[in-house]
């Protein structure tokens, strides 16, 4: 359920935090669901139990999860994932990747903007067609 890349420059505890939040966002974990214990998760993803424990503590501090003594750790019923913000960040990341790719292809910033404009124009043209209007461009 969580993918850990130990070679990544993101520390493993941060990857666990992001992974659990992503699972909540995708609806794979719902408020009130029980999370695996520190030991179980550390086994599952082959990570140091101290690291898992640190991630859980941070998630608890952010009120994403809550621990009920003697019963285990649960997704907090109050947690409202900030869908828009997270999706916005994802979009930004994707755009960045595209720009880097374009740079490797030898495109300048102006070329990329031109490409973007033509992409927008294409959409508009399609829309116009659907409405039965003539293409002005």
């Amino acid at each position, binding site marked *: 359920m969580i993918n850990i890349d130990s070679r990544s*420059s993101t520390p493993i505890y941060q990857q666990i935090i992001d992974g659990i939040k992503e699972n909540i966002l995708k609806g794979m974990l719902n408020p009130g669901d029980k999370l695996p214990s520190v030991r179980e998760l550390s086994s599952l993803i082959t*990570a*140091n139990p*101290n690291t898992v424990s640190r991630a859980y503590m941070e998630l608890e501090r952010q009120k994403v999860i809550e621990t009920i003594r003697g019963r285990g750790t649960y997704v907090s019923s109050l947690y409202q994932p900030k869908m828009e913000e997270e999706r916005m960040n994802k979009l930004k990341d994707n755009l*960045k990747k595209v720009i880097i790719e374009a*740079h490797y292809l030898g495109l300048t910033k102006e070329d990329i903007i031109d490409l973007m404009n033509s992409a927008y124009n294409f959409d508009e043209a399609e829309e116009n067609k659907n409405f039965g209007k003539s293409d002005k461009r």
Partner: protein
Amino acid sequence: MRLKKIKTLGKVIRGDNLISVINASKAYPYKKVLNSINLEVEEGSIFGLIGPNGAGKTTLVKCILDIYKLDSGEIKIGGKNISNNPEAKALIGYVADENKYFATFNIDEMIKLYRMTYKSFDMDRFNELNRIFKLPTDRSIVRLSKGMKMRLSLILNLSIRPQVLIMDEPTSGLDPIARKNLIQILLDEVADRKTTIFISSHNLGELERICDTVAIMDEGQIKYTDSLDNMKTSMKKVQIAFKEEPKIKIEEMKEFIEVEKIGRIYTVLTKEFNNQLISKLEKEGMVFYQEINLTLEDIFMCCIAKGTGVM
């Protein structure tokens, strides 16, 4: 010694250091091998020691175990000086890089020897582990392969229920499945018993996944030690590209620990990748930058290549 306990999420966090190496120095007639080493290993943590061949890792391990005597300095296990201290030594399991057991013994006789030596030896634990590692207990040591001897050493030393487990290249000679099993067993040891684990290894990928703290050793000195999380948040590996050749020499900028150049793209290691540096580079005509993965191997190479402490 009273241990301060704070219970959170089923894990006991204790501030105490189970292994303390204080100003340890040792010289062989031909070479100074340990040069004022200072190290602290926290209880219940996994500590990785890395360094090139001949850096002094095995010597340090043997000094921690009091197999070799220090010229000066001190080593404490659980707060007690290790030198001539059987009580402190009883807490330690030691898996050596080469396992030289009595060749005429068979495994059953080795178990007997361990039971006599360590009061804490747990036969149930031995059987439990041997269901994973599958050693024929009537086989004599001389007829065991290198990997089988390593398995034996691991099982024996885990069966004494150690508080500190010191291992020198524990995965050498093990097949991939045995390696995976071993790592799982070590993680369970830490989760269930708060065992403190000290690993000296060249297998950086494995260490990167399981260690809390790593120390990089070279020429008898600790060049860099920090938690892996801190290493990865403080140091960044960044690719930078310029429109045209920048006026300032990127290689000579003091912000960069290491610079590599392929075509128009620079790959730099830095601890100061902030807005200030970014705007400085943009003035020089930087057209894009991208943070890329920084591995333990990168940090290791950089430390050893520089020769001096980077951080």
